[in-house]
């Protein structure tokens, strides 16, 4: 019976995700129709085609957009699993980006072959340090992670602006200087394959990160402890888990993931620089959407990141018809919102599907309870948040 349930679970969560996506696209179509009925359909087709519009270059663009948001998505999703809402991915991302650029410009003493690797490691450390602050304050002083993360976003933004101006500033363009050639991520033939310079080995590093997080969460004791902490802090403390350590390490790893994302984006050699503006890195907030859409599961996050990037490319293309690319953000937000409906949808399906099994062995109360249990496990960390009382928003 258990295996049967799991089978249904996979199918239902897939179906419900699909229905949410369909609803989001439908709303997008309606918005397009309302704003310009003539060009709505060709534009809509263009959105659906997304990265498949422009041959291999389009695909490269999808990968380029996806890399940072998959990393911040992993960061947010990982923290979700420990019951922490890492709204601070933005600050961690920016710190990582800055340190990567700084090392990429100033550390010319590092051997050329590993310069980019050192810069990426620096980015991870910077992100981890930035992530550790909310973790430590939460573990030892019971300070709400959400509020410290928000504060750290702003502190990070101003600190990076100050540091750029003092170290690696291109005052003419009000942005960072370009990094040394040796710090740009190796292309490993990817640029020839995709016929554009935007791609590099970055996507492989992302895949490694996804696999690593999957293994940590699902195959190690450490990951189990983190998830236990997310489900119920008191119970895991009672079970002998050091919950302070779990919280801090979870935030450190989440921070490192975001920081790595910043490093990967700004070392990709695509001509991207940090501008000295009072603006939080939007990639951090996209990460929340990616994590929610991917249901906090590493592989789900990977696919969600690619999907959102695919739509973003489509949104960029529809400017051809004088549409505004922000339509994509609206579509994605509707998809996320419909995730709520999807939960209901899933409940109905699983109740419907499991009923015959239940009827044969137990009373009628069971279906509801089982469908609830399904929900809890499906939703992953996002649902886990409900479990403990200390970290309320």
């Amino acid at each position, binding site marked *: 019976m258990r295996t049967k349930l799991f089978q249904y679970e996979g199918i239902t969560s897939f179906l419900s995700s699909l229905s949410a996506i369909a609803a989001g696209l439908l709303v997008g179509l309606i918005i397009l129709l309302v704003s310009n009925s003539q060009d709505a359909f060709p534009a809509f087709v263009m959105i659906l085609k997304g990265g498949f519009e422009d041959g291999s270059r389009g695909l490269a663009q999808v990968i380029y957009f996806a890399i940072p948001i998959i990393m911040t998505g992993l960061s947010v999703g990982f923290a979700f699993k420990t019951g922490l809402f890492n709204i601070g991915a933005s600050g961690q991302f920016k710190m990582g980006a800055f340190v990567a650029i700084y090392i990429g410009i100033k550390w010319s003493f590092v051997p050329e072959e590993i310069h980019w690797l050192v810069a990426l490691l620096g980015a991870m450390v910077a992100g981890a340090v930035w992530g550790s602050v909310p973790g430590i304050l939460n573990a030892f*002083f*019971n300070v709400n992670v959400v509020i410290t993360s928000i504060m750290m976003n702003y502190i990070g933004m101003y600190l990076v602006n100050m540091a750029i*101006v003092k170290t690696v500033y291109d005052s003419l363009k009000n942005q960072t200087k370009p990094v040394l050639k040796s710090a740009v991520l190796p292309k490993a033939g990817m640029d020839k394959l995709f016929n554009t310079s935007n791609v590099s080995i970055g996507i492989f590093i992302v895949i490694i990160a996804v696999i690593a997080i999957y293994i940590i969460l699902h195959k190690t004791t450490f990951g189990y402890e983190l998830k236990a902490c997310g489900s119920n802090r008191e119970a895991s403390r009672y079970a002998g888990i050091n919950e302070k350590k779990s919280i801090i390490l979870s935030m450190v790893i989440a921070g490192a993931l975001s920081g790595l994302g910043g490093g990967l984006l700004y070392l990709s050699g695509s001509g991207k620089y940090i501008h000295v503006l009072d603006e939080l890195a939007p990639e951090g907030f996209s990460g929340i959407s990616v994590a929610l859409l991917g249901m906090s599961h590493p592989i789900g996050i990977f696919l969600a990141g690619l999907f959102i990037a695919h739509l973003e490319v489509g949104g960029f293309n529809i400017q051809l018809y004088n549409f505004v690319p922000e339509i994509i*953000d609206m579509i994605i937000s509707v998809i996320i919102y419909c995730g709520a409906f999807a939960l209901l949808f899933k409940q109905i399906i699983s109740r419907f599907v499991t009923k015959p099994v239940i009827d044969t062995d137990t009373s009628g109360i069971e279906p509801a309870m089982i469908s609830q249990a399904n929900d809890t496990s499906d939703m992953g960390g996002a649902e886990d948040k409900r479990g403990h009382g200390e970290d309320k928003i």
Partner: protein
Amino acid sequence: MSTVYFIAQQTMYFAIPLLVVALGGMFAERSGVVNIALEGIMIVGAFFGIGFINIYQNTMTGQGLLILAVLVAALSGALFSLFHAFASINLKADQTISGTALNMFAPAFAIYTARMLQGVQQIQFMDTFYIRSVPILGDIPILGPILFKNAYITTYIGLFIALISWFVINHTRFGLRLRACGEHPQAADSVGINVYRIRYAGVIISGILAGIGGLTFVVPTSTNFNATVAGYGFLALAVLIFGQWRTNKVFAAAFFFGIMKTFASAYSGIPFLKGLPISNEVYKMIPYIATLIVLTFSSKNSQAPRAEGIPYDKGSR
């Protein structure tokens, strides 16, 4: 002395929107619904409020127009918050999810609509609302310059809202029921309170206040609306937690943050601070660092509503 007046007047511009929005968040959270959509609701409120001013500023000016715009902002905020209420109360969804969705939708909607209608995303408006000095009241020594000069009517609306909020939540039957639903909805239900209805009320009030807060933020600080409220919704969330979900503490927290923010943005107008050899960015960081430090020493006992963020299910115990 003029420096003190200057600081006080500037503080109002920062503190009032924070105060209003954080109080909105308080109504939602004390009814048991976490509302991280405050940022998005602020943007929607500001969008419709400023849009209203933009359309009608040729036919009317001054305080009447601003008050109507405040009503428009409140209404649009309330309507937008219904999405959050529906998902988190009826559908029992995770409240972070629908909040994030709303936060993402609002700026995209504002940019899309503005650009589709007028080509650019900035919505311009003429500031005919500035009050140099309130008649009679502005002449009171000390208090006059602090409260009644260089002001906007939204300041008084904000202070009035704070007073009303304090009264409603602590001294009315509705306030008691609201708090009960946030602490122990099952108990509230058992004595005949409609938990769903109370939570709807909480979220709608938060929508009204966040909508007003969005407009209140934009009007004194800018002459156009650029589809952003500069993260004030998230800061209001921080103020709410900092203020431990209590009206008077939220009030203090909003003004603490407002004063810090004033030092940060207007330090060049303060002779004492201007002379110090400290970078601009450091001043900007101070409000956030100060909040972190204060929180570190004051968070041991969190006063968060117990049932906050947990969807109410009649069947559960």
